[in-house]
Structures are given as structure tokens and as C-alpha cells.
């Protein structure tokens, strides 16, 4: 689907809602704003309910006979299982503080993208079908019945929320639409109402370990290919190991880094760092082809699916007998590790409390999960003077840093990446206040919405982030947006190119790889992207 020019799209945004009551405005499923339906084979593979071919544009969604019962039963069950959900259904005062905080509302103007209203779509069912007051007073109490039309509306808008949690920062009660969306999607999944960009990766992760379904030999090939590139640039070839029993550390990264540019450059950065650490300090890091996905697509399906997919990391760590696990630059992966992993898949008592064998630093904040973020690992190495850098190789880059939603509002991971960035680069400019750290904006493609067919809504959702980038681009000539999330690297590349041409996107370890002086390396002519380094132009 061809998408409008940026200025046309921008001019079309109006934040004025219609006069009619929202319950009287049925959802109209627009191409460009929804993702294709989940492939039945993928659902079948992992045993999800109601696999069938269906199309969101059709009238008939081929729901099971007793679908209302399933949804209402599922709703009741989850009200008991999640206090968060129950409280969030009950205490919203509709103050509207969250309304203009969602990137999808800012960029689309669609009032049902206001977090409060997105929640009301489900809350109205909760009131109309479950609470006494709502059952008696009906619409006066904001309740309505669960009809097919309502179900379609929920599906449409719950797959227009990237579960970024920005709304929750501003809500006086901390109502987190992401939590409501997660549970709303669980309910939709009970009817087989998934989207393909989630269903397929889920099945792939389950089968092959990574979301693209890369089989073990091909996974290794990809990494070998990066090693070729590194050899060409530096004259040194990293020798990564795979599935190695008895390695010190297991490394798990989002498989986006292994497959899609510009994540691949970040992956080269990891390889170079590990090579350096092996040569200088004898650290033995291994990759797994079995647990080859950090990003958890189950998280966008159900809590159960999240647990099923995440289990691999601990199972593999146990099998290989490593000391602890190192995790790559990824958003959702880290939200899941930080807030769910130990509770769901733990206790990981067969692993050690992570200690950096090089600096001796004990990562107490990861004492129970036994999983360390590569950025905190690297920051610690740098702080202890264990890495040698040549910053001049990044001299052509003027960078800004994009805080990923999940590492920000799910972890509070702000200073570590900035410290690493400052250590490898001189020209850094922060985006304006209100758009960074806990108030950071989503890339627009998180939570499995990074598909091609929903371009329009992704560009709309990407507007707030891209516009803040535009500010530093215009003011300071920023030409690189650095981040620590694989979905960011994929989505932002497109949306930044759409709204602010001239800015590229990179992971942090790409910049680390550029600056890192490998022992015995040849003089580099280019950076990891093959661009000529500053000062090397004449020699060409």
C-alpha cells in the first residue's frame, strides 16, 4: 500500500473527536492500519485455539459458536489472576491525562487511540457483562454488550497499541494500558484472533529458536558471514563458538540482529567485543542456535506463550553449564527478563550470581535472574579501563540516543547506554525534554506491529519520535539515532527515513565495534557499514 507524503499525512491529523458518542461510532477497519490475520498453520504448530483462514476485512470472522462465553469467561478468570487488571478496570476517573500521551493518538488523531478510550473499549464490556451496576444501568454506567462489532473494534485497536507504557507514566493511578492490551490480546487469542506478524514468529521461535525461523546451520552461516566482513575491515577474524558446553557465558540476542540491517552491524560489534575479550582476558562466550531469540513474541500473545518461549534460555544455560547469561540489545526481551523471567521460568539456581570475570564486578541487581544486559556489561568494562578505543573512527557521526520504551519504562535503564555512547563518541546531542528517558516515545512498531501492511499507522505512530529527532537534526546536524532495541532498529530506520531523511539508525555496539581497537588489527579504512572512515578519503 502506497503511503501518503509526510506533509500530506501530517496535515491530515486532527485531534478533534467527532460529535457522536464513541459507542455509536463503529470501528472501520482501514487498510494500512491493521496487520494480516494469523496463519492457521502457525497457530496449529503451537496449539493455539481456533486456527483457520480468516480476513479482518470480511464480515465473517469464523468465530467459534460460543465465542461470547469464551471471552467473558476469560475476562472473569483474568480479573482474579491479575490485580493490576482488576484495578485498572475499576479506578480510571477518565481525567484524560493519558489521552495525548500515546504516539498513535498524536500521530493519527483517532480518538480511540487515546489510552483511556482504548481501555474503555474493554471496560465497557466488563461493566456491561460482569459488574452489577453496569448490567442494570447499561449505557448510563458506561456498559455495553459484547457484540461482534465490539469484538472487531477491540481487535483493531488492541493491535494499534505497542504496549509501550508511556500512558502509564502520566496516569495518576499508574493505569498501564500495556497491561490491559496484553490481557485484551490474550482474550482475542482465545478465539484465534491473532495477527500474522506475531503468530508466525511465535511458531518459529518455538521451532527453531528465533523469530525468522532460521535453522541452525543458516544461523551459523549468517554469523560466519559477519566474521568475513570483520576480517575484511580489520584483518582479524573472530571465532565465535556455538552451543559450546562448558563456556563461561551464554549470549542471547534478538535474532533481528542476526538477520536485518542495521542490526547486523550491531551483531558485528558484539562479535568484535567477544573476540577482544577472548584474546585479552580469555573470556569464553558462546552463542546458541537453539535459544537464538531474545525478543519474546509470546509476550504479544499470552502470558503462557511468553513463558513457553522464554524457557529456552534457562534450559540452554543449564545444558551448556555456563555461569550466567548475557543478553543483547533488545527491548521486549529486557522487559520480559526484568519483570517476568525469574518469576516465570526461575529459579535459575544452577547459575551463578553474575560476576564479570574481567573486572570482578558483581551484578547484584541481576542476582536472581542471573542475566546481565550487554550494555551494563560493557559500561562496567569501560569504567574499569578494560577496553581500548579509537573514538576518531566515529568522528563523522553526530548521534542522539533513543531510549527504548521497554528498557526505559520497564527497567529504568538510562545512564548505562549513555555512558557507553559517550565513551566511543564525542558528538552527542539529547533530544528535547519530554521525549526522552521515561517519557520516551515508541518507535511505532513494537509488540509485534512491525509489519509491512500496517505502514500507515506505523508512520503515524512514529511521528513523535521522529519529530524529536528532526529537532536535533535541524539544530545540531544529528545524523545518527542510536538505540538498544532490535525492533527500534528495524522500525525507526523506516519512520525516520520517512519523517527526517538524512538520519540513520544504529545499535550501540555497532559504535563500540567501530571504536574498539582489536589486538593486532590492520589499519581500518572503513567503518562496519563499509563507509570510508574520516581522514581516509584521500587514500582511496
Amino acid at each position, binding site marked *: 500500500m502506497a503511503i501518503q507524503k509526510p506533509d500530506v499525512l501530517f496535515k491530515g491529523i486532527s485531534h478533534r473527536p467527532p460529535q457522536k458518542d464513541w459507542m455509536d461510532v463503529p470501528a472501520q477497519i482501514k487498510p494500512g492500519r491493521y496487520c494480516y490475520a494469523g496463519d492457521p498453520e502457525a497457530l496449529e504448530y503451537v496449539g493455539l485455539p481456533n486456527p483457520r483462514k480468516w480476513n479482518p476485512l470480511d464480515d465473517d470472522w469464523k468465530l467459534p459458536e460460543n465465542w461470547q462465553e469464551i471471552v467473558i469467561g476469560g475476562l472473569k478468570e483474568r480479573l482474579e489472576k491479575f490485580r493490576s487488571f482488576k484495578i485498572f478496570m*475499576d479506578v*480510571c476517573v477518565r481525567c484524560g491525562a493519558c489521552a495525548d500521551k500515546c504516539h498513535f493518538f498524536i500521530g493519527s488523531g483517532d480518538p480511540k487511540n487515546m489510552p483511556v478510550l482504548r481501555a474503555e473499549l474493554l471496560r465497557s464490556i466488563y461493566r456491561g457483562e460482569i459488574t452489577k451496576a453496569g448490567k442494570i444501568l447499561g449505557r448510563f454506567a458506561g456498559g455495553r454488550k459484547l457484540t461482534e462489532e465490539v469484538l472487531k473494534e477491540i481487535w483493531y485497536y488492541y493491535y494499534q497499541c505497542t504496549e509501550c507504557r508511556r500512558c502509564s507514566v502520566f496516569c495518576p493511578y499508574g493505569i498501564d494500558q500495556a497491561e490491559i492490551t496484553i490481557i485484551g490480546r490474550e482474550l482475542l487469542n482465545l478465539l484465534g484472533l491473532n495477527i500474522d506478524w506475531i503468530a508466525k514468529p511465535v511458531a518459529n521461535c518455538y521451532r527453531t529458536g528465533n523469530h525468522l525461523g532460521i535453522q541452525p546451520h543458516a544461523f551459523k552461516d549468517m554469523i560466519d558471514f559477519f566474521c568475513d566482513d570483520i576480517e575484511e575491515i580489520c584483518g582479524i577474524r573472530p571465532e565465535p563458538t556455538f552451543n559450546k558446553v562448558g563456556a563461561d557465558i551464554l549470549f542471547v540476542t534478538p535474532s533481528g540482529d542476526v538477520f536485518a540491517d542495521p542490526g547486523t552491524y550491531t551483531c558485528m560489534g558484539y562479535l568484535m567485543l567477544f573476540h577482544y575479550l577472548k584474546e585479552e582476558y580469555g573470556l569464553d562466550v558462546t552463542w546458541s542456535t537453539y535459544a537464538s531469540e531474545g525478543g519474546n513474541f509470546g509476550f504479544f500473545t499470552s502470558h503462557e506463550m511468553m513463558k513457553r518461549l522464554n524457557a529456552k534460555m534457562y534450559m540452554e544455560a543449564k545444558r551448556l553449564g555456563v555461569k550466567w547469561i548475557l543478553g543483547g540489545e533488545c527491548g521486549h526481551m529486557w522487559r520480559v527478563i526484568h519483570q517476568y523471567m525469574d518469576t516465570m521460568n526461575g529459579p535459575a539456581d544452577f547459575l551463578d550470581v553474575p560476576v564479570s570475570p574481567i573486572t570482578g564486578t558483581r551484578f547484584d541487581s541481576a542476582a536472581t535472574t542471573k542475566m546481565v544486559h550487554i550494555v551494563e556489561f560493557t559500561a562496567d568494562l569501560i569504567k574499569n579501563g578494560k577496553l581500548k578505543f579509537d573514538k576518531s573512527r566515529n568522528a563523522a557521526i553526530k548521534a542522539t540516543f533513543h531510549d527504548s520504551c521497554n528498557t526505559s519504562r520497564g527497567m529504568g535503564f538510562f545512564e548505562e547506554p549513555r555512558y557507553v555512547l559517550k565513551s566511543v563518541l564525542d558528538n552527542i546531542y539529547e533530544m528535547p525534554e519530554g521525549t526522552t528517558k521515561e517519557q520516551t516515545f515508541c518507535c511505532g512498531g513494537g509488540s509485534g506491529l512491525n509489519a509491512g501492511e500496517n505502514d500507515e499507522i506505523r508512520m503515524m505512530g512514529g511521528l513523535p519520535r521522529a519529530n524529536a529527532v528532526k529537532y536535533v537534526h535541524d539544530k545540531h546536524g544529528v545524523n545518527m539515532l542510536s538505540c538498544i532495541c532490535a525492533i527500534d532498529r528495524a522500525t525507526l530506520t523506516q519512520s525516520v527515513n520517512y519523517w527526517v531523511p538524512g538520519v540513520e539508525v544504529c545499535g550501540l555496539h555497532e559504535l563500540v565495534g567501530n571504536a574498539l581497537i582489536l589486538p593486532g588489527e590492520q589499519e581500518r579504512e572503513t567503518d562496519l557499514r563499509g563507509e570510508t572512515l574520516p581522514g581516509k578519503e584521500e587514500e582511496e
Partner: protein
Amino acid sequence: MKAIYSLFLVFALVLVAMFGAGALGMEYLFGVLIPYLAVLVFVVGFVLRVVGWGKSAVPFRITTTCGQGRSLPWIKQDKLENPSTTGGVLGRMFFEVFLFRSLFRNTKVELHDGPRVAYSSSKWLWLFAILFHYTFLVIFLRHMRFFTEPVPFPFEMMDRLDSMLQIGAPALYLSSVIILVALGYLLLRRLFVPSVRYISQPADYFPLYLIISVVISGIMMRYFVKTDIMAVKELTMGLVTFRPVVPEGIGTVFYVHLFLVSSLLIYFPMSKLMHMGGVFLSPTRNMTANSREVRHVNPWNYPVKVHTYEAYEDEFREKMVEAGLPVVKPLDETSEPAENKE
């Protein structure tokens, strides 16, 4: 429409009290029975709701982290916005509950040509919300002089401070003015800000009107319609000592006031007003963000079906061997394929 419905409903309540306690003279019903019932409904309803929430499990720590988390020792943690200890959580909750911290962060978005998206600080909602809640509290506390004998010093003090300005006789309460202004702002915002109007429901207008009419009937009593304060005190003291009496000649407006307050108490537990209790229980705010550091148990964690390494190797063994990847079982050892496990 919704706004009008709700207004109409509140008018109806006023009429019921005027008619019932005034024309029909059912003063005992409106002065004793309904207030008792209301307090009972309020207390029982409130407790049931909170217990209901409390019964739901808290499986995961989903704290919203609004500041630097605990990390390497040389990185300064934001202990209030991203607490990893109970002390930090208490601090965070204090700021949330007493100072409306999150609302204070509020911003407003505007689109300009360019294209440019601009954000500006927007503190009006915070200001009027906090004014409303605190004046409500003050008014509640200074009413305590009707329910105590002798009146304890703090309540006296509160009353004196509130009427500090000494305008007119009887002296004007500051709180009455502020609460009306604040409620007026909240109401007008709902009526005239398009996006807020769009999300508003009868259940949002109704309590606003109800509280406004409680305040207005209170003001009426004090300044405009003659009410026998001594008689009111006799009645309220009778209520709290469980020896209810209904003195003569209190005046209908008092019963209207009391009936509206009773309605508010009854409405409270079944409505969004329960945010008063909910604010303390919100899992994104009242939990420590330390689940990477400290083990936390999910009460309903159950085993799930996972894909084992053995099953994986069975499927890909040939390709793995070809690519030089280590395998556990050599190729020629043909045996039963491994199962996935629960």
C-alpha cells in the same frame, strides 16, 4: 446529553429531599434512617471493594519505572521514581497520594506546521485536582465539630484558619470558595475540552454535580437560608452517640444537604470514586522494581509445554552436523525422537 442526564438526576435527588423532608415531614427518615444506611453502605461497600481487589493475585512485578534503576554502583539510582526497596516505594506512594506526582508531569501536545510536534507543560489539571481534594478534606475535617463534644482543638483550629479572612458574618470559609472554583474548572473542562468531553460518561458528570450541589446546599445553609445550628448539632450528636433525635425547625435545606451527602456515600463504593482506595493498590506504583534482583513468586504459576533441546536436535541434527555444530547424539545413533516436555 450525558451531562444533562446527570444534572437532571441530581435535581431529582434535591427534589426528593425537599418533598420528603419538607412537604411530607419525613424528617426521621431523611435525618436518621437514610444517613445511617448511607454510612453502612459506604463502609461495607468500600471494604468489600478493597477486599475484592486484594483477592486478585499479583503474579508479576510490573512496576512502571520513571527514573534510573538500580544498576552499577557508580550509577545514581532514582530511588523514588524507580524504587528497589520498601522505603523507596513508601516515598513514591507518598508523592503519588499526597502530591499527585504523576499528574504533575502532565504535558500538552500541539501540532505546528513544519511539521513540528510541540509539548508544553500543563499543570492546570494537577492544580485544580489537588485544590479540590485538599479543600474537600478540610471541609470534611471541619465538619467534625458537629460530631464531637467538646470539639477537639485541631478541628477548632481548622475552622478558624478556614474562616481567616473574616469576610461578612458569618465569616466566609476559604475552602467553600476554592472548592467551587476547582469543581467548576473540572466541570467546564469536561464540558468544553473536546477530547475530554468525548471520553466523559454520565458516571463522570454525576459525581461532579452531586458534590457541587452538596457544597452549594451547605453554603446556602450558612449564608442564605436560616438554619438552626444548635439543632443541627443536636441531631448529629444524636447520630454519633446512637441516640438519634430529630429536633424541631432545622429547616428543609439541611435535609437536602444531608440527603445529597448520603447519596454520595451510597454511590461511592460502586463508582469510579473508589479511586480513593485504588490509588494505594495500583501494582505499577506500589511495587519495588527489583525482580531481577530478588525472587518473586507467582501464586498460579503452572507448568507449560516447552520445546526441548533434544527435540530440536532431533529435527535438525543432520543440518547441524553438516554445518559443524556440536550435537549430543551422533548421526548414526538412530533412536526414537525426543518429546517436548511439560
